[in-house]
Structures are given as C-alpha cells and as structure tokens.
C-alpha cells in the first residue's frame, strides 16, 4: 500500500465514521430535549434560583435548600407539595405535561418561582 492510498483510506474511514456518528449525535441531542437531564433549582437567600426554568416534558426537577431555614415547594395549582425541606434537603418532581407551573414557599410566600414545560422546537 502506498502512502497516498493509505491516507485516502484513512480519510474515507474518518468520513465514514463522521457520517455514521452524525445521526447518533443528532439522536443524542434530541433525546436530551425529549427526556431531559434533571434540572436543579437552588433555594438560597430565600430565593428560588433560577426563578423560572423551562424544561422539556418528562424532565425531573430537583430543588435543593441551601438556607439555614426550612422552606417548602408548593404548586399554586396543588399539583405538587413538598414537606418542609431543612438545610440540604431535596425535593423532586417530574413534569410530564406541557404548561406553566407556578409555585411558592408556603412558609415564606414572598418566595415564588415557575417551571415552564415545553416540547423542544422542531
């Protein structure tokens, strides 16, 4: 095998690999959007952060309380309600249906947040 033909073969292999890899990457990207990695909302300084998150249907949302004071995560439409979360406690809820889900802390009701569930575009 000449050096030139070896280079061409290598090039073809790379192109082939890239061609094969492309749909896999695309599939992976769309599966992130569909199933969703868990999304974390921090509770620090009596604030939900980020205050609004937008996620795909089926996404698991995890709240973690970083304050020295307990907080709760309570849906304004009574869809979900955590127990009191002490420092470092977590609460998880999986959002299946598209829509807007406003919530608040029932102990400190000035603390509000929103989860927006939206199917990815395309």
């Amino acid at each position: 095998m000449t050096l030139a033909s070896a280079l061409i073969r290598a090039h073809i292999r790379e192109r082939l690999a890239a061609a094969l890899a492309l749909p896999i990457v695309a599939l992976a990207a769309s599966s992130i959007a569909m199933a969703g990695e868990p999304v974390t909302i921090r509770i620090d300084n009596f604030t939900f952060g980020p205050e609004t998150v937008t996620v795909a249907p089926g996404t698991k949302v995890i709240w973690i309380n970083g304050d020295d004071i307990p907080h709760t995560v309570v849906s304004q439409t009574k869809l979900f309600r955590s127990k009191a979360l002490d420092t470092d406690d977590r609460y998880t809820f999986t959002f299946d249906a598209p829509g807007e889900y406003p919530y608040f802390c029932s102990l400190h009701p000035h603390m509000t947040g929103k989860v927006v569930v939206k199917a990815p575009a395309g």
Partner: protein
Amino acid sequence: MHDPTDPNDDPTRPSRRGALECMVWAGTGLLWTLGGGLPRAVGLERALAAEASPAPFSFLQISDSHVGFNKPANPDALGTLREAVEKIRTLPQKPSFIIHTGDISHLSKDREFDDADQILRETGVPMFYVPGEHDLLDDEPGRAYLDRYGKGSRGAGWYSFDQNGVHFIGLVNVVDLKAGGLGNLGAEQLDWLEKDIAGLSSSKPIVVFAHIPLWTVYPEWGWGTQDGARALALLKRFGSVTVLNGHIHQIIQKVEGTIAFHTARSTAFPQPAPGSAPSPGPMKVPAGELRQHLGIASVSLVHGNEPLAVIDTPLAG
C-alpha cells in the same frame, strides 16, 4: 378627656386604661418613653428608679425559641432558651403569665416541642401560645401544635382571655399563606375577632399577640400581614391597644394613634435589620455577641398617667 359620667374616668382612681398607659418592658437596658408618639431613650438607672413602686400586674413575652435549631448562627438554641428561662426566674417581680409569640420549635418535631415544654415549665407560670410557621411543619400541618397548645382555641389556634381588666387576643397569621403574599388571618378569624370584641367597652385595654407582625414592617421579606389592616381597623375604637409580635427576631416599635406595636427578640438567633442583608436568614454574629441579640420582654402595667414606656432585656450585655 375627663368624662364625669364614666365610672372608669374618675381622675382620683386609676382606670384600667390608665393602668395600661404605662407599660414597662424589661429589655435592652434602655427605657423607651413615647411622648407625643416620639420615642425617647433614657438610661436604665432612671428607668429602674421609675419602677420603684411595684406594678400590680405584669406579664412576659418570649418568642422564636426555635428549639431544634443548631446552625452556625446559634448551635445551641435549647441552651439559650434555658438561659432566658433562668433570666425570667430571677426577675424581681414574677410575671403573672408568659405569652409565647410562636416558633416554639424549629421543625415541629415532637422532641423539639417536648424540650421546649420541659424548659418553659420551669418558669412556674402559665403559658399562652400562638403558633409560628415553624410550628406547623408536621405531616398534617398544625395537628401537633393544636394537640399540645390548642385547648380551648378556635380554628388554627386563635382565642382570647381576660386578665386584670385587660382583654388579650391571640391571633394566628401563619396558615393558608398565599403565593406572593404576607402573613394571613383569613375571613373566618376576622369574623371571630369582630364578634369577640363586639361587646367590649372602648375603654377596655387590649393586647393583641400574633407571630408575624400585624403591620407591614418589610414586605420584600414577607414581614407583614396581608389582612392585618382589617384586624387593626376593628380595634381602632379602643383607647389602648398593644400589639405584640415575633417572627423578625429583633425589636421594632411603632405607635399609630392608640395602637402601639412591638416585636420581640428571639431566644435563638438574630435576624438582620430590614433590607440590610441579602435575605432575612439567621444572622451570624461573633460568638461573644450572640446574647446581646437575644432576649425577652416583660410588660408591667403600672397605675398613673405616664406615657407608654418600653424596656427590653437581652440575655447578656
């Protein structure tokens, strides 16, 4: 103004209303006198001299003991409650009873309530409670509180009683809070309040106590009560109304017409002054200074026409 037709208005006899016009609080070592609605501080020595004649009736306010709290702002909230009770036991005049304005426990656990009860029992005087939001964190919110402290109360734990001619009203403003809102009394409790005071003479001194301040201290931190103004409107006709609250772990006072507002210190941990920190969370102070930020308040009703006077006592300093 003197009214000869009012038997309570005999200037030679101190009236109930006159009795409440001078309320002495044991406190920071400063006596706050309110003349013309403007607070003026005088030194503790003068305050003690003014107290020379013993008051006929006094009670004490304790608040926000947060038993179970063990975070850096105070790793031993039970210990500081114990110190507060020691302080109460050494008061020269034993209070007739103690009002606890809520957040007895930190997480509403049986063990926390047990510990609080055991220590507060050592005061040897009757206790009256209203719940804070930290006392309603059990699985069936408020069940544990009502089972322990709710005897004879209505709804979420509100009630009233009379003592030495003063009408005391305990209100609950920590249940059914609405998103984006403040403390909440609710229509049922306001209806009850209206009926409760309907038959009372306007000269009857009133003391109202609740956990969250009934007036708006700082809405950005939720320090106020959404429908508090409705309760205060019902109380407007009374000549002397004193509102005692907790929740904000610091002393804030205000006089509006015939209504005097006071918030008490916590026995567990201090919170920052409104807007002075990123959040109202527990304020960590140098260990040696903690007890200057914790304390109790004692209220004495003394006969005479002195203006309202206020003192608060820290655990140390």
